[in-house]
């Protein structure tokens, strides 16, 4: 059978195969870098310049993902390929960073530069973790919701809960449900969730509310229980929306932090490189 290279390249690789190939290329690049650094060191060459320029090059490559996303019409492959390049180049950049900085002994500019680099690496790693965690978590939540739709749906659920609570007072079963709504559900439906929930969304509050609503059964008649069930349903739906809101915003917030850091890093790198070049030329 003839080996058709074009077919081979266009074959959809399995994700496992893609990962193996990408790691192999990354390790090869790291190995080549280490060899070069070792070679320069034993020959008394400027390995710091080599790692510095290499790091600069890799940083430019990393920054290119952002440009690629904005210039989708460019015929240079889909974004998914560039994200993979970004991830593995990120690993290489960490190795280069360690080789370049070594045991840190610079001034305040270098300290800021190093901190910023680590900040970007940290947010990048967290984004990578989120990109794997969020889909699973949101799929487990159930229905899929677009972020922009969430405030409208939250408002809708809050209004429905209010209507149900009001209706319960007209059943002749007392104000049990209405009182509970007033005390516990008004803040739940109308106030934003805590910052902690925004970072680590959990179903603790939902469970507590549902448990408490369950215990109200003994004070309710048949119609009251039916209303209670509907309120429970709304509590669940509201919690699902909150989880969506928290997770989707978390991703956007981290991405913003990552990109803001990137621009600040670009500025400091310019200063750093200019300074270094000035000293190198003098020296």
């Amino acid at each position: 059978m003839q080996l058709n290279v074009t077919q081979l390249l266009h074959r959809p690789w399995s994700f496992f195969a893609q990962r193996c190939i990408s790691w192999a290329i990354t390790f090869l690049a790291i190995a080549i870098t280490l060899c070069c650094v070792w070679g320069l060191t034993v020959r008394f060459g400027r390995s710091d310049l080599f790692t510095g320029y290499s790091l600069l090059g890799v940083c430019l490559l990393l920054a290119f993902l952002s440009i690629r996303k904005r210039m989708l019409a460019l015929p240079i492959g889909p974004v998914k390929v560039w994200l993979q390049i970004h991830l593995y180049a990120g690993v290489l950049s960490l190795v280069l960073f360690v080789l370049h900085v070594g045991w840190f002994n610079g001034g305040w500019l270098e300290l800021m530069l190093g901190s910023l680099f680590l900040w970007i690496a940290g947010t990048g790693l967290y984004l990578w973790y989120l990109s794997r965690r969020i889909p699973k978590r949101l799929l487990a939540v159930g229905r899929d919701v677009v972020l922009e739709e969430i405030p409208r749906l939250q408002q809708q659920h809050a209004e429905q809960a209010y209507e149900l609570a009001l209706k319960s007072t007209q059943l002749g079963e007392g104000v049990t449900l209405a009182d509970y709504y007033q005390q516990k559900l008004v803040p739940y439906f109308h106030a934003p969730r805590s910052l902690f929930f925004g970072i680590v969304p959990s179903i603790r509050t939902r469970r507590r509310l549902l448990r408490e609503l369950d215990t109200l059964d003994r004070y309710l008649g048949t119609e009251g229980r039916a209303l209670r069930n509907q309120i429970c349903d709304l509590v669940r739906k509201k919690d699902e929306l909150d989880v969506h809101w928290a997770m989707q915003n978390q991703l956007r917030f981290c991405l913003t932090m990552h990109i803001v850091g990137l621009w600040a890093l670009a500025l400091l790198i310019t200063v750093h490189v200019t300074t270094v070049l000035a000293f190198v030329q003098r020296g």
Partner: protein
Amino acid sequence: METTLPIRRPKRWDKPLDPALTQEDAEWLLSLAPLAYLDPTKFPKSTPLVEIIRNDCRACQYEHGDVILREGDYGSSAFLILRGNVRIFVTRLSEAQLGRQATPRKTWWQSLVSTMRLQRFAEVRNTESLGATTSASIAIRQPNGQTHVFLQDVDRLFDTHQTNTVKTGEIFGELSAINRSPRPFSVVADGPVVLLEIRWQGLRLLRRDPGFREHLDNLYRQTSLASHLREVNLFRFLPEEQLTAVAQEIRFESYGELEWYNEFEETQQLDVQKRIQRETLIAEEGTQADHLLLIRSGFARLSERQGSGHRTLSYLGRGHQYGLDEITHNWKAVDRTQFLPYQRSLRAIGYVDVLRLPWKVLHEKVFPFVRASEMPPAIKQPRYEPTRPIVDSPLKSQSGEIETGLVEFLVDERLINGRETMVIDTLRCTRCDDCVRACATFHDGNPRFVRQGPQYGQWLFPHACMHCSDPVCMIGCPTGAIARDTNNGVVSINPDTCIGCQTCAESCPYDNIRMVQISDDRGRKLVDEQNQLPILQATKCDLCQSHPSGPACQRACPHDALVRVSVGDMPNLVEWLKRHAA
């Protein structure tokens, strides 16, 4: 309290095509040739011929130069000429002459510049070209509330193009109306003309007349049967003489409802078992495997009994066949008493056209010319055998390589109709909305899909145009603004000729076409100068066909979670699903 409300049972023809058409009109029409040649005794009492004419027909008037049919359009009516002549264009009219806008392909540089440009207002249109149509050769007139497109310089076009004249008493457009296939030619009025439009429901009923049926069958036999058969592996290498003999033995049949999309939402509300019972049964498992069925158009559900319901195994589309396994098995069998019946049932999903070929013809005229290696293997463990009792098979959660539930879902939601369906793997999608942003970037700031839609497990099918195999949105567009590109199959809307009638948006059973209010380049909303009502236009995904990069949504997804895939092409879909499910 009463729990039931007696009403008059809804009947066929409660809504006639033309309520103004009277019994006398229908009888007069039946006295004209060729309707006079139809045999009224061939029609049952429930659907008498005169009622078919009265309820499924209407008279239409066209002026000189009016375009009656446009090549490539989809329609569900045939036309009988009552008075006057029409011309069929044998040589093609250009897209511009037909009022279509051939989407100009941008260069990479133009594409880059256009996507970098910031658009300040939503849905901006060029007010100069709106309503005026794109070419100087056509215009729109609206007699009696109907919209007709006419060719301005029609006489010159008659001179420069090869045309055939169709005269009073002749019928045209019947084949594409019955088969739901694109119109093969354009038809233009040559002088004032009066036509009798016959909708497909009526055409189907008229097939009861042997003469009319033979006319339609011969027409199909002459025009496209041979090429259709050659597309099927089984007949590919059959000698010409044998193929002609096979073609003579073929019977044409239609099942289901051509206008399935009208009842789609209502059907979705039904119980699963009732839904499947509503589908027309074409062939039933356990009955004699006496015919090979070739799907000509539409879709069919392949299922087998499971408990008190039916389990969908697969769906068949154009070019697929049913019954070949059983007929081949029987051909190889020595003892005719051991002939196997059909092992699975076949039902029409929406509508389906089939070619029916008797097993004897296959045994005698086809199988001797097919290599043994190309024949399906004998059925090893048949469910139905002549001598053994039927036992319910154990429940399987997989149908081949795909989850049974997903197959049922795709069929129930009619997603099998999609040729370029957007599928999102929500186990990889981070909801970053890069796909929506990319879509907006490529369409002057206006996204052409919504990242929401039917979902089965991790697979989300957003509301994005699927560029369907059966593009029901294209039926009834009065100006031909919505059209399919004959080269790549992309269905797109020409904003210059869209009059905002909403026919396409209402026909689309998937809610993938949105009506939007348009504005000029200064952000002023456009309104009708007569009644100040907003001017709307239909918008939908066009697969970014004007850009060389292809669909921006797929290109922009950083997590490889989004794909445009033909759901009708099951192997292709399975490959993608398998890769993602792994």
